[in-house]
């Protein structure tokens, strides 16, 4: 059978198809990159009440554990029950329109649904209690929470970010009494101090800390 198209034209068709394919791949890649939920510079997540950690932590000096009560005993740090909010807000800002969702929920009319800021994939099993017990401070992962009028994420939560610490935790370890201290800054000899703390806390070996089964199951 005679050739329908010239060789040149066939080449053009081939190149065209290749270009189309590349365009689709490039488009999808670009979209995925832009659509990434977890870019470090994420904007604050919208919440039903514009809750300010800066106000509660820095201005009022409330300890993290007053609200996140299970952080030392459970995998989940805990979200405070509405009654915890109302210990103060039944007295303070009782008419603030901003707190209307809280009052309505407390009266039982609706529920208050916060949007999760640190959303790990479901195949990751993170445990707050063991990190706190081994001297990982709140601000090490959550950033300067006392300077956040609206809460946002500062860490990528990628596995490489977790592993950066799991490979050499001494870079971040603190003394036990400074874990909840938002003003803690690493001392000049952090590596030496951290290594001493690592021994003191009896941390597992780096090999064990980087086992898949440490976080995935």
């Amino acid at each position, binding site marked *: 059978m005679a050739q329908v198209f010239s060789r040149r034209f066939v080449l053009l068709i081939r190149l065209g198809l290749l270009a189309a394919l590349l365009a689709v791949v490039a488009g999808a890649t670009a979209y995925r990159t832009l659509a990434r939920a977890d870019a470090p510079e994420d904007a604050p997540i919208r919440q039903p009440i514009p809750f300010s950690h800066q106000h509660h932590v820095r201005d009022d000096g409330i300890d993290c554990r007053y609200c996140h009560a299970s952080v030392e005993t459970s*995998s989940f740090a*805990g*979200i405070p029950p509405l009654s915890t909010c109302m210990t103060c807000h039944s007295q303070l800002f009782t008419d603030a329109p901003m707190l209307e969702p809280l009052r309505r929920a407390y009266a039982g009319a609706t529920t208050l649904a916060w949007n*999760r800021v640190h959303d790990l994939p479901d*195949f990751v099993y993170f445990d707050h209690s063991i990190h706190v*017990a081994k001297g990982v401070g709140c601000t090490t992962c959550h950033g300067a929470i006392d300077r956040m009028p609206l809460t946002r994420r500062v860490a990528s939560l990628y596995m490489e970010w977790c592993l950066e610490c799991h490979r050499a935790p001494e870079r971040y370890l603190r003394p036990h009494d400074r874990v909840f201290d938002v003003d803690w800054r690493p001392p000049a000899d952090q590596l030496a101090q951290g290594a001493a703390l690592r021994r003191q806390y009896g941390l597992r070996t780096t*090999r*064990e800390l980087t086992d*898949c089964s440490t976080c995935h199951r």
Partner: protein
Amino acid sequence: MSRDPNDTDRAAHLRFWRSVEEAQGEVDPSADTIGLPTGRRDFMRLMGASIALAGLAGCSRPPLERIVPFRDGPQQQTYGKPIFYASAIARDGYGAGVLVECNMGRPTKIEGNPLHPASLGATDVFSQAAVLELWDPDRSQTVRAGGAIATWDASIAALQGRLRARPRGAGVRLLTETVTSPSLHAAIRALLGRYPEARWHQWQPVNRDNAYAGARLAYGTPLDTTYRFDRARVILSLDADFLDAMPGCVRYAHDFASTRAAHAPAERRSRLYVVESTPSLTGAAADHRVPLRARDVPAAAQAIAHALGAASDGPATAPVPAEWLQAVVADLSQSRGGCIVIAGERQPPHVHALAHAMNEHLGNVGGTVVHLPAAAAEVVDCTASLRELARDMHAGSVDTLLVLDANPVHTAPADLGFSDALTRVPFKLHLGLYEDETAAASDWHVPAAHALESWGDVVAFDGTCTLQQPCIAPLYGGRTPLELIAVATGDAQADARTLLTRYWSGRQPQDFDAFFDDALRRGVVPGTASAPQRPALRPFDVPPSTTPPGASLELVLTTDPRTGDGRHANNAWLQELPKPLTQLTWDNAALVSPALAQRLGLVNEDVVSLRVADRSLDAPVWITPGMPDGCVSLSLGYGRTRAGTVGSGRGANAYALRTVDAPWFVPGVSLVRTGRRYALASAQTHGRMEGRDIVRMVSVAQAAACTAQACGTPGYRDQRTLYDSPPFGPYAWAMSIDLSSCIGCAACTIACQAENNIPVVGKEEVRRGREMHWIRVDRYHEGSVQNPRTVFQPVPCMQCEHAPCEVVCPVEASVHDAQGINVQVYNRCVGTRFCSNNCPYKVRRFNFLQYSKDVPSLDAQRNPEVSVRMRGVMEKCNYCLQRITTARIAADREGRSLRDGEVVTACQAVCPTRAIVFGNLNDPQSEVNRRKNSPLDYALLAELNTRPRTTYLARVTNERHGA
């Protein structure tokens, strides 16, 4: 080339087989997989579509996750931590203590209650599966009046109006199952006091009529006889499946195994003699088993009793072999005061009476055999009670019928014509968990609260009472029988908790609150165990043997080991759990012996018609080694028409052949071939290890003389290897499974399923060999197909130190961690299945399809600590990594090491016989190390040098010489 040190033993070990075909050296046809009828073009089309869709699915952000706080935090709840509530689950009316694990208010898993005498920390398969039943989307969700949706208030009004018109209760009948609950019994008595002409009937298809009648015959009073298997050295079972199907069986299995474990002290080691009409777990555990037609068991009992001197007359001919009879009699007489004769609940009353006489004669009563007042609140003959109700319904003298938690339309004996009689009752109200056959035939149906949603109480086999507490509010507004009786008595306002506390505060007036809280917390009401009784044995007559001539076939009806009497038919976990002896899933079948099948020219899956008198039933045939000749066995619990989407229309309804006079044994059955075939799904040849040295069995004498060289794994640990040693941390997890203790109940399989979010695949997929159980219980036979010995072997992942699966994984989804666990990283897995191909133990499971469907109520059952796997991912046992991690984090927080026994895997926790032990190899004092140092310890396929962390203790048998 070095010689395989096992070569000499190999011939001996090849004696084990799994199917009749294998035993006869043929290729098992069921070992073939079934091909998909997909052509190349269909395949390309499907692939094209899925590639296009996969591209689209990649372009979305993960959805925002929401956190809804409590209004007032519950006091005991710590976010992210489970709470365990003590409660009880009833089986055939008898309670077993459980601890219900609740994650954020959702019951997700059930453990046994160590403080409860019927549990001692273990459970049976039904308790494990109860959590799936709770979340079953097919449960009844609304009140119905004549099929239309109605309200609870309307049903109350209808019922109360009905009763108001009958001030003395004339024509009012109440039908329940056997009631052991003291509070419910008191409420029913109050109701009957208020309506003196009302009558109460009790019916359950698996009942203790024969046992009670036997006790009446021997002692003049109905008794519950309980047994102390831990004190017995010789046990004779007359068709009694005390390990699997009797009140207290979980406790019995525990006690029994304490005398059977590989390292049970010689002076406590027991010997078990069994005569049975259908292979059962008890028969599989026997040292000497005789398969016998059910109608021959009375004569066997009489012969033994006569030989012992406990009965004056013996039968003309004993149906058991003479040497066997001699051995039993000699052993029993040598163990006076330390033996047990136990009669099965299917056997007629005089067999029970003979067993009582033998126990009295042997001086066992008060020691190994303990008589207690009946646990049932009121002992009635269930069959007589239902017959009376049916008769009155036929006569038209019943005009108001309340059916509480029973399904008589399905379970009533066929000759009562119960369904027809029911149409003559003008007002029928049914309370039940499902809209079942009885609900469909009733005018009103009220959804019942599940045991995990209810306040109530229940009595165990030894009389111990447990208060049941709800772990979650009723999902569908279900009511308990107690509430419905209160409504009938005129108290429509009281809730179940008030009714329960009202009853118990009457029994325990002082310090009630402290008493109630304490009883709830413990899961047992202190001091409620019954006191033993010593009634005097009375002379009784044994009816002359009426064994019809040998030719006629006999049908034996049994309780199904998975669906019970049919109430669990809609439970997919139970349906897919292979039945222990036949390894069948999803169906029942007419079990026939190989000889009978040969005589009739039947092969597996042939459909036969079972004909008795004018009744007939079609059922597929399954050839079962160890079935007595001249006998067909069919289990109840199938052929449901309104069980739900899982259970409806499965299997054959054996109730169609059950009559009042022949509730268990139907003589004169004929088998007629229909020429049709019906596909059954049996797992018996799945995961086959190709006839290698898998199961080891030694006698007591061999075990005593055993050195590592003779019984265990000779020197394989020192074999050299090309692979790197795995990394070692402070923990080296390992498991030991004692084949002497294992009775094959498969509670481990279903506990693992609940713990690890393991999906159900369905019958077709099981036929393709794709069941997902992480721990399977293999069943091996040895000896003749007529009466083989049976060994069960639970097989989880071996956690090989040199794991063959790891080296072939192209994406490192199968890797070792420093604790010695061969972990499967689901989000790395791309599904090549190389690992499964290279696994000599066949313990890896692949998600061929999206088995974990999103059903909201089933999602609620999932364990939040374990990933739910998707299609295309390999999975397998990981020694309950989540439990290890949780325990380890708790210990790490306190800055200490894990203690031996602190980590308990799901299979280990549930095991009634303590066959499974898990622990740290690096701890020289650990229990698992102690077991592995035994000369009986061996590894599967040790010659492959995979160095499994899971090893076995050889099964030790205790046969009598010359028997």
